[in-house]
């Protein structure tokens, strides 16, 4: 299930980013598991717990998934229904692939606008005007930069935010702008990967946006050395 066929030639740059994304995914999951485990041990053995533990793990959970979605688009590993498209001739498949690419572009675009609009007030920035499409920036939306997380301690490296967005008032907890920043960042990355996938489909280098089970089986069978039919 974890095989993705990637026949495109890999440049050193592409390999670097693949490795980076894979390490981030593995690292976040590892840290989530360790924090949860350490908290259980602390509770039973030392009768103490990291009060920020749960909230940090939940934030990391959101980061893991949101960051990983774009990786899934890059490697064409998102699940979908391929039963209908497999029945069509290759011309029909191509037309449907282009339509699905447009649907994914629409999704990524709307998500990008939503992510920015949600995050911006927390960063003392302005969300965009318009319902479907960004039509310039709004004025006088209430600033939410003073919102902090429930339990996560303030980190020194984010102190500059106090002057930048909080009128110099000090934060006693980590401001929400930090964990929520993953939303616009991931949405932008998703948009980028979907655009790249669309280009590959238009060039004929990729056939669909979902993981192809048939091809995967073939790969497996070749790997197992039992190619019979």
């Amino acid at each position, binding site marked *: *299930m*974890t095989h993705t066929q990637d026949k495109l030639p890999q440049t050193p740059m592409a390999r670097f980013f693949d490795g980076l994304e*894979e*390490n981030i*995914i*593995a*690292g*976040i*999951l*590892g840290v*989530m*598991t*360790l924090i*949860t*485990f350490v908290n*259980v041990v602390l509770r039973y053995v030392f009768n103490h717990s990291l009060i920020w533990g*749960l909230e940090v793990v*939940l934030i990391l*959970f*959101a980061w*893991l*998934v*949101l960051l*990983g*979605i774009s*990786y*899934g688009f890059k490697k064409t*590993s*998102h*699940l*979908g*229904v391929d*039963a*209908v498209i497999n029945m069509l001739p290759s011309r029909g498949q191509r037309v*449907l692939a282009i339509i*699905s690419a447009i*649907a*994914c572009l629409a*999704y990524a675009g*709307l*998500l990008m*606008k*939503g992510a920015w*609009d*949600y*995050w911006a007030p927390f960063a003392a920035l302005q969300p965009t005007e318009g*319902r479907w499409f960004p039509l310039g920036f709004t004025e006088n939306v209430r600033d939410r930069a003073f919102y902090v997380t429930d339990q996560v301690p303030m980190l020194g490296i984010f102190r500059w935010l106090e002057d930048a967005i909080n009128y110099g008032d000090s934060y006693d907890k980590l401001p929400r702008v930090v*964990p*929520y920043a*993953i*939303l616009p960042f991931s949405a932008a990355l998703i948009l980028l990967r979907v655009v790249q996938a669309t280009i590959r489909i238009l060039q004929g280098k990729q056939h669909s*946006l*979902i993981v192809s*089970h*048939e091809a*995967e*089986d073939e790969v*497996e069978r070749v790997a*197992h050395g*039992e190619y019979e039919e």
Partner: protein
Amino acid sequence: MDVVFLFVMVIGLLLIGVPIAVSLGLSSMIFLLVFSDTSLASVAQSLYQAMAGHYTLLAIPFFILASSFMSTGGVAKRIVRFAIACVGHFHGGLAIAGVFACMIFAALSGSSPATVVAIGSIVIAAMRQMGYTKDFAAGVIANAGTLGILIPPSIVMVVYASATDVSVGRMFLAGVIPGLLAGTMLMLAIYVIARIKKLPKGEWAGWGEIGSAFREAFWGLMLIVIIMVGIYGVPGLTGAIFTPTEAAAVASIYAFLVASFVYRDMGPLADRDGTGPTSLMAKPQALVTAFFHKDTRHTLFDAGKLTIMLMFIIANALILKHVLTDEQIPQQIAQAMLSAGFGKIMFLVMVNVILLIGGQFMEPSGLIVIVAPLVFPIAIELGVDPIHLGIIMVVNMEIGMITPPVGLNLFVTSGVAGMPMMAVVRAALPFLAILFVFLILVTYVPWISTYLPTTLMGPEIITN
């Protein structure tokens, strides 16, 4: 009729090959923008909160990770040996042992495809060597593998519990009797077929072999104890020790330690040149390097990737769920069904039909997130036990996993058995009939699902 438009859009997008998550999310966004005043910003917030706001769902990555560490091959191999030692000497013994091994592995892992991959890749090859047909082997494993989501722990149950606010602990307990029952039914069927078709039987290797196989498999089997004792406590002595989410995280760490330091199937101490695994004494720095070893990183990455694919679908299904609840759809359906004079039985039959059809196209967790809130209020109104409803849903999902076009278990079985998809579908069919009988049994006999949780945790209190 707006909602019909919504569902037509979801299904249309699914069928033309749009990823499941995008089909759900895009349809919901378009619906919200056209028919309500919700903004895109709140959609983005829902997407973030799908992870950050659902403590229950946090169990999913940890259960996936524990099962990834356990799937490294070594544990599955030892469980299969133990299963063969126990039941291998019956007629059709290897097939029965395959089912038994799937049941044990299901109790370590929360996913069906993982069970098929771990057990199937060993048992199917062994069965063919013993003279079973490839079809029979694949059919048995594809079906037995579905027990992965019925026998606790189970990812699908976590999703159901999170979608309907019932307790995960209760759902897990409720799965125990149905899981054992389904496994037994499969084994009996195999035994009958084996007697008729005169399938090969193995040698009785004696209690000594059972003992030594058990000692070998002990560290793997302990994981079941950790999860169960952790969630429910030692009967009569302690209460619950962890939440299910914590139990899953502890299980992952335990599985990592066992795989790296006890079985040494992976990590710095693994056997690289055929001379057997290295001793920790000879390489004490492994205590530190194991955490950063490329095998560990690889397993973490695989589990992370699976979590992402699953949670992307669940998060978008949650957006769709918000749309449905905002539009009061569950209440409308409930009203329509109650005024049409539907009774409990008719309702459960309808639920089964909806899920069986839906299960053909959707991934189980996503389907549960969408369907559970729709049928839950009606079930409460009609006096159906929420836990019983959950088990019915899980059994339906099992069937959905081995029926085309979208059956995850079919895909993986065809992968591990090296057979075309359609051949696996045909091979799985006779055993599918057993699962159908089982579904009917579970639907009409609520006792099977509710006995254990009610006895051990008291009667279910319905708050809403």
